[in-house]
């Protein structure tokens, strides 16, 4: 008798799947650890950061004086910040377009079925495995020494436009291989049948590419462009090791300005406010792009 009662309990606990407590338990069991970590390392710091934007903390002091919205008005009137932001936008536009054009072209070439294409795939992907800091130093050597010696010219890194060009080139080199992989997956997911059908209907290979393959790969484009936009907007490592903001502060991108503001100039609250604005700009651009991209997506 006693035993049956216990059995009853057991089923109550685990078999009634529509109660709230069951759902909570299930959630905790499977997503609990992930949620806890996410709270710990993303949500809590984010909220704390938000709080810091309302203080004039210098980063080391024990007191954090509350100043209201002062940091935001200071951020909006910080002309160096906005010129860094403009520079970031210009850099991102060039870098995103070039990364995706190059990545798409590479993906096309390594899915043609040429000999040793797997070797080429991994070869183009390798730059992505080098950390941004190291990569910056490598390219700095190339621009400052190798190119100078080969072309017998002055270094590109010594002029403002040249420095931006170098930044864009290094980023394209770094990310094109990664995006290429996503495009390769896109190419492979387009089935041969539809292409064959297009050819039978009289398409040239260019037309088949434009009207069949590319529309079917739309999700790859959405992903790649989203990834490259978000990465370019917050780039810091390559910026630091390749140009360090030089010459005369003309290649300081937004993330570097935020870091300097918070840690080097010790305006932690202001830096945090500027970081928040950068985050919002980046999020708005990224989400808009995904929404526009998703709208016209077609299923094969």
């Amino acid at each position, binding site marked *: 008798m006693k035993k049956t009662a216990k059995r009853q309990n057991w089923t109550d606990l685990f078999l009634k799947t529509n109660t709230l407590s069951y759902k909570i338990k299930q959630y905790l069991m499977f997503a609990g650890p992930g949620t*806890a970590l996410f709270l710990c390392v993303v949500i809590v710091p984010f909220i704390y950061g938000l709080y810091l934007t309302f203080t004039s903390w*210098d980063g*080391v002091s024990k007191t954090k004086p509350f100043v209201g919205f002062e940091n935001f008005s200071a951020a909006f009137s910080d002309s160096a910040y906005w010129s860094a932001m403009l520079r970031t936008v210009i850099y991102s536009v060039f870098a995103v377009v070039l990364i995706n054009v190059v990545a798409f072209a590479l993906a096309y070439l390594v899915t043609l079925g040429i000999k040793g294409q797997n070797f080429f795939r991994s070869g183009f992907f390798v730059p992505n495995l080098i950390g941004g800091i190291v990569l910056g130093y490598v390219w700095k050597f190339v621009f400052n020494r190798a190119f100078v010696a080969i072309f017998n010219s002055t270094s590109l890194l010594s002029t403002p436009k040249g420095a931006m060009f170098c930044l864009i080139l290094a980023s394209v080199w770094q990310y094109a291989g990664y995006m290429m992989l996503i495009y390769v997956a896109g190419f492979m997911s387009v089935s041969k049948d539809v292409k064959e059908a297009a050819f039978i209907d009289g398409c040239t290979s260019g037309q088949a590419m434009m009207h069949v393959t590319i529309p079917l790969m739309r999700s790859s484009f959405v992903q790649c462009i989203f990834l490259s936009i978000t990465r370019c907007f917050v780039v810091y490592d390559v910026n630091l090791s390749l140009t360090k903001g*030089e*010459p*005369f*502060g003309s290649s300081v991108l937004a993330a570097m300005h935020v870091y300097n503001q918070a840690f080097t100039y*010790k305006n932690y609250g202001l830096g945090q406010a500027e970081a928040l604005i950068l985050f919002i700009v980046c999020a708005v651009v990224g989400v808009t792009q995904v929404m526009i991209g998703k709208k016209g997506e077609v299923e094969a």
Partner: protein
Amino acid sequence: MKKRAIALFLTLAMVLALAACGASGESGAGDGATLTIFNSKMEIQSQMEEMAQKYSSEKGVNVEVYYSSDTVAAHMSTKYASKDPYVLSMVDAKDIYSLGAEHAIDLSAEKWVGDTTQAISVDSKVLGFPVCVEARGILYNGDAIKKATGKDFDPAAIKTTADLKALIDEIVAGGAELPVGLQKEDWSLGAHYFAEVYEMHEDPDAFIAGIKDGSVSLKDDSVFNALMDTFDVLKEYNYAKDAPISAEREVTEMMLAEGDLCFKFGGNWDWSNMSGTDYTENIGMMPVPSSLDGYNTTLVGGGSKYFFIDNSVSEELQQAAKDFLNWLVYDEEGQDFLVNTCALVPAFSNITLPVSDPLGASVKAYADNGALTPNYNYLPDDHYAKIGASFQKYLAGQIDRAGFADEITAYWATAEVGAH
């Protein structure tokens, strides 16, 4: 039952993970027994680590040395933000002023205070222990000069900008066409060269206040113009004059050490990169020439890098840190470590060991003769970057001297010097 046990285990694991998350703030350096030292002089990190090992085994104190490639202020911010400070931190002078009042213990009662003129006091409490003396000036390579001119070089003969120009002309005639090196780094230009404009004034505070309220016109200031005249000469003969912004510090230092250059603006810290090269004998430092009498006889510098002891750690650790500082100043091994192992110029008059490197020896000679103009340690944190950027424009020929002066005046319209 088994499932229940697993669920229990998972819950426990999660609670533990979260607890670890929350507690990490209080653990770390404060675990009671370790004397943690932050070293901000990259060039002596390996020596510091070796010393720590030896010191630990001999004195029975566990010493650990850390280094960060961040700027000192940035690294300190992170450590204090995470409530995990070092017991003993080596920072720049300005950090003692900004951190000391809140975080450092009073060292006024220590014996070494009487043996140095470089300690830093805030509110008449000694908070900063000077690690070494560093000074700025023109570095020269006497052998390279002799090779070009055929005459022995006497640094004391170069007083004015015209003297310098005449000598360089002679060197150029002797075959070395571009015998000068200039660094493009913002700290070298903004915090080292340009700062001399403030430091060479009798009262830097009044001078800066004058720029701020408009009573001083920087464009017409004689000290500024004299220093910029000298800079123009250096710039004209800069080996990298076609692309001065891509000159690399290490290359410039190596060229000077090996005799490909005759002059470079810098300081005795440059030796850390020069010592590994195939350097020539007669290398030294001299003051930046100036056409103003009395402004060309001193190097600029003083105590550089300061230790402070954190006030939140246990008494024992504070005592261990004090013992360590005394070891550096009064123990023979400590003195040997400072002067010979790390090749630093000591800031203490009781240390009589001869300084081993030629640039340090020059600095020591000037310091011993009282010919050091003190550093101005109260410039705002963004000064070196902002003024450095303007100076880079000047170096690259993007703006002229008047434009440069305007940018500096504009900077000071909003900037404030640090409290002192």
